[in-house]
């Protein structure tokens, strides 16, 4: 399969890239790793008159802690996230997520920013970033702005990014002591989108009660789903089996998946419940240092 004709631009700086996006407002798409965009163009489900490749702009691939945040450059590859010692040690939810995105070959090209900016509720990072309460840094002609992740996904394949903005960084608040997270995904085979998946991030208080819980669901509706009722329920509770059971029941209620070859609505909601329970249990165990 061959995509319809387009022109290709490989700017060397961010401002050059933003200028190009402004020059072709209705026709330009940002090419990051291309692992979602190129299949879309090949299948002719989408088209673009101009591709602006941000792959040759230096300084967009990094993972570092700074000013109370974990900062991930928009073009950071999934394989880099997977291999990062910092991520494995302090942000295991991100390591869990990166390890189940597509397959290892795709992860060598695919980028964290692309995974979010594509706006696909079947992608894995959105749920994780919802659970972590991340912020998305968009850079455009007027400079930088930070979009809270809760406001980022506005519809199916649609985000709060303007056509002339580029997702340049993801900022995750560094978790306090006694925090832990996990991502659990059910997939038919490596490389498939999730039948259901759940991300959970918790912080425990001194007495072992849950101070903060973040829960995100993958492929559970037209946009990534944040299970706010479940999060609220867990506040102040001990993270025991009864609390996990009730929270995962509430989380599944927030899911409105579509039926497809991966399963019926009832099955997917039930899997969302089971995976939320498992992700919570693992997140709590990690927060306890187990």
């Amino acid at each position, binding site marked *: 399969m*061959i995509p319809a004709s387009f022109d*290709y631009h*490989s700017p060397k700086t961010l401002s050059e890239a933003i200028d190009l996006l402004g020059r072709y407002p209705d026709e330009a798409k940002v090419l990051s790793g*291309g692992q979602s965009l*190129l299949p879309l163009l090949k299948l002719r489900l989408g088209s673009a008159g101009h591709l602006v490749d941000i792959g040759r702009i230096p300084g967009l691939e990094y993972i570092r802690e700074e000013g109370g945040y974990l900062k991930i450059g928009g073009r950071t590859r999934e394989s880099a996230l997977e291999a990062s010692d910092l991520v494995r040690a302090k942000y295991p939810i991100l390591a869990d997520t990166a390890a189940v995105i*597509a397959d290892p*070959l795709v992860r060598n*090209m695919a980028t964290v920013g692309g995974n979010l900016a594509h706006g696909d509720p079947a992608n894995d990072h959105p749920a994780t970033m919802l659970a972590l309460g991340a912020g998305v840094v968009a850079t455009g002609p007027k400079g930088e702005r930070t979009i809270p992740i809760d406001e980022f996904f506005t519809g199916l394949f649609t985000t709060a990014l303007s056509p002339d903005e580029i997702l340049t960084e993801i900022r995750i608040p560094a978790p306090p002591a006694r925090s832990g997270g996990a991502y659990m995904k059910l997939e038919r085979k490596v490389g498939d989108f999730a039948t259901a998946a759940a991300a959970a991030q918790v912080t425990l208080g001194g007495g072992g009660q849950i101070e903060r819980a973040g829960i995100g669901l993958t492929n559970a509706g037209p946009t990534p789903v944040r299970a706010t009722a479940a999060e609220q329920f867990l506040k102040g509770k001990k993270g025991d089996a009864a609390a996990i059971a009730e929270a995962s029941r509430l989380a599944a209620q927030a899911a409105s998946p579509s039926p497809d070859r991966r399963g019926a609505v009832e099955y997917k909601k039930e899997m969302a419940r089971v995976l939320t329970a498992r992700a919570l249990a693992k997140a709590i165990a990690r927060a306890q240092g187990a």
Partner: protein
Amino acid sequence: MGKHTIKVTVNGDAHESEVESRLLLVHFLRENLRLTGTHIGCDTTHCGACTVLLDGVPVKSCTVLAVQADGREVMTVEGLEKDGKLDPVQEGFYQEHGLQCGYCTPGMMMTSCALLKSNPDPTEADIRRAISGNLCRCTGYVNIVKSVQHAAAAARTRQQDARAGR
């Protein structure tokens, strides 16, 4: 619309070509350079038959534009054999019968080649994880895993021999 001159080093040889923006790397390799060892399987980023090394990293060449490879190094299955001597990975697939129909083999070997560079002594789990984006529809995975293990051992032996000046 949108032609670009690209310079790509493939298996050590520098190539300069004028290509369309939309030309996929796999088509550039197969049709422009006539390197047909890289296969097109699913053409939808699933099967890994088209795996090549881009700056040493295995990627699916059906999901990379030729223009993205400008200024970079590509290695295909044709680049494995050196001076008439099979690469340890090729030797492994030959000795352990790591193929039936052979369609997935070039991709399997390129992924294995990259794995052994970063992890010269992989466990079976490491190998299975590494090739999880390469599908073999003959389902010959048992022998493929054995082939990579054989390759790892062969590569170590060759290194020891080289060090001993044999």
